[in-house]
């Protein structure tokens, strides 16, 4: 097996005595597509927030690509090569699709105020390069140029999700974190999402970690699945192993919609 790209060890997080994550050990191998599943409130999004530097766990270490992440501010984590999307689409409102995606290129470009004021050739070249790279990301996720100048939040929901993924790709990550990317998508769009996730890994060489409630999608797309329940990692394995794991079935049985969710 290839070396772990992302590695969490003994990560615990609590808010005012309320334990959200307890002693989590977790890994994502280089070039893998890994899913993180678990009932509502299990702590999945919180785990993303710990990785991306928004939450500071009380104990544990997080290593990415040989670098300790816990000391880093969120923007540094992104610069280190981790990009994310949000559970509830969070595009910049009142800004166009193109402007939204351009935000991702910020950490890969340098021009400052003086270059902009003087309109230096290097600055103009960089602006052109930003647009080109964003155009590339948008086409990759299947957004067409006629949509670039539209206000992002006016697009159909499925396309907003794609723009959010394009924006994350524009940061040129090594690892992409997707928080429930299939939520609100119809069956056809889910199939396209599966294809997109595979292309992100195969064509761009980006490892993917996704949180998802749609088991069909999870089973199809991921090589490994980890299960979080009440903040603890209770299982880890291939789709087949997870389906057969009694602890996982029990975790989901506590939920009213257990049957729907366990509809593997």
């Amino acid at each position, binding site marked *: 097996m290839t070396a772990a790209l992302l590695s969490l060890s003994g990560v615990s997080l609590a808010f005012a005595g309320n334990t959200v994550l307890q002693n989590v050990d977790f890994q994502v191998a280089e070039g893998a597509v890994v899913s993180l599943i678990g009932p509502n409130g299990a702590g999945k999004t919180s785990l993303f927030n710990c990785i*991306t530097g*928004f939450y500071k766990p009380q104990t544990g270490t997080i290593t990415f690509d040989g670098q300790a992440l816990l000391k880093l*501010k*969120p*923007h540094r984590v*992104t*610069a280190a090569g981790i*990009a*994310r999307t*949000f559970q509830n689409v*969070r595009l*910049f*409102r*009142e*800004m*166009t699709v193109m*402007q939204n995606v*351009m*935000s*991702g290129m*910020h*950490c*890969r*470009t340098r*021009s*400052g*105020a003086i*270059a*902009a*004021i003087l*309109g230096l050739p290097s*600055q103009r070249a*960089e*602006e052109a390069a*930003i647009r080109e790279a964003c155009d590339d990301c948008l086409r990759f996720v299947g957004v067409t140029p006629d949509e670039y*100048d*539209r*206000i992002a939040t*006016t697009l159909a929901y499925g396309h907003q999700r794609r723009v959010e993924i394009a*924006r994350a790709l524009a*940061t040129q990550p090594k690892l992409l974190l997707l928080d429930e990317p299939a939520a609100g998508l119809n069956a056809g769009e889910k199939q396209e999402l599966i294809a997109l996730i595979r292309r992100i890994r195969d064509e761009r060489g980006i490892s993917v970690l996704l949180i998802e409630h749609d088991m069909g999608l999870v089973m199809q797309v991921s090589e490994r699945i980890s299960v979080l329940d009440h903040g603890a990692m209770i299982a880890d394995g291939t789709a087949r192993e997870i389906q057969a794991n009694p602890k996982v079935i029990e975790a989901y049985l506590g939920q009213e919609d257990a049957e729907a969710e366990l509809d593997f």
Partner: protein
Amino acid sequence: MSQHDSVTTRLSARIAAQFQTPAVRWGGIALILVFLAVLPAVFGQYATVIMTNALLYVVLALGLNVVVGFAGLLDLGYAAFFAVGAYTIGILTLEFGVNFWLALPCAVVGAAIAGVIIGGPTLRLRSDYLAIVTLGFGEIVRFSARNLAITGKASGLSGIGQPWLFGWHIATPTDFYYVFCGLAIGAVIVSLRLEDSRLGRAWLYVRHDEDVAEAMGINRVAVKLAAYVIGAIFAAIGGAFFAANLGAISPESFSFTQSVLILMAVILGGMGKIPGVILGAFIVILGPELLRNLGELRLMVFAVMLLLIMLFRPSGIWPKRGTRS
């Protein structure tokens, strides 16, 4: 009320749409430049002096617009940077005999350093601590100016010399009028370029959603600090030429009211909209002048007018940029 609102909205949107065709835009710009060029000859000295003041406010309002409009930071002590610029020129030229053009970069650097000192620690905090800190900073600067010997205490500094520029002695009100025309045009160009740049976009991202901006790899503290410092530099340059123009400065030119007036121009124009902010600057300066024959009542009438504008157009007088959809 809403009827009236929608009529004005449509009207101003149509005017703005007109500005978007290149021919009309360049024609309009040429017209404005010609108007500025002939103003002293056509309208005489009084109008020239008033316009000079309005142009100073264009510079100040555009500077504050970087902070408030672009980056979304509330600054209630902006006049402090204006004072730093003016007093740096006053002190360096009067007490140390430094040439104006050497003192000018010192004023800029001084304001930038002050910006870093005030902004650095405060911008790390969320919410509106900045408003309170900047309010305090504004008062501290004015208080210091009133009480220090080097700033001439309450009576201020006088006898500040007029600069030479390549054999041109900038001396008459008309000379200064043209200098301020140049400064205002420069401020407009700098604002436009900043707005349409990597840094300008970063301000928008941070203003709209700090967390997401951070998640996209933007250092929100650094980006806000850049806005704060750039705003400070605009004010310092304005202050430097203000001091040279009047030849005398006193602490009362840099009061809280001054900060509020500049902020009013920005809000009135519609924060972040460059043409709107320019218009806002003209309104806060020319408004009271145009109402001069109302005598004592004029400030009150003006205040009521401002209130009405804010009631009917809470997002400023300039319409939203037309967006294709």
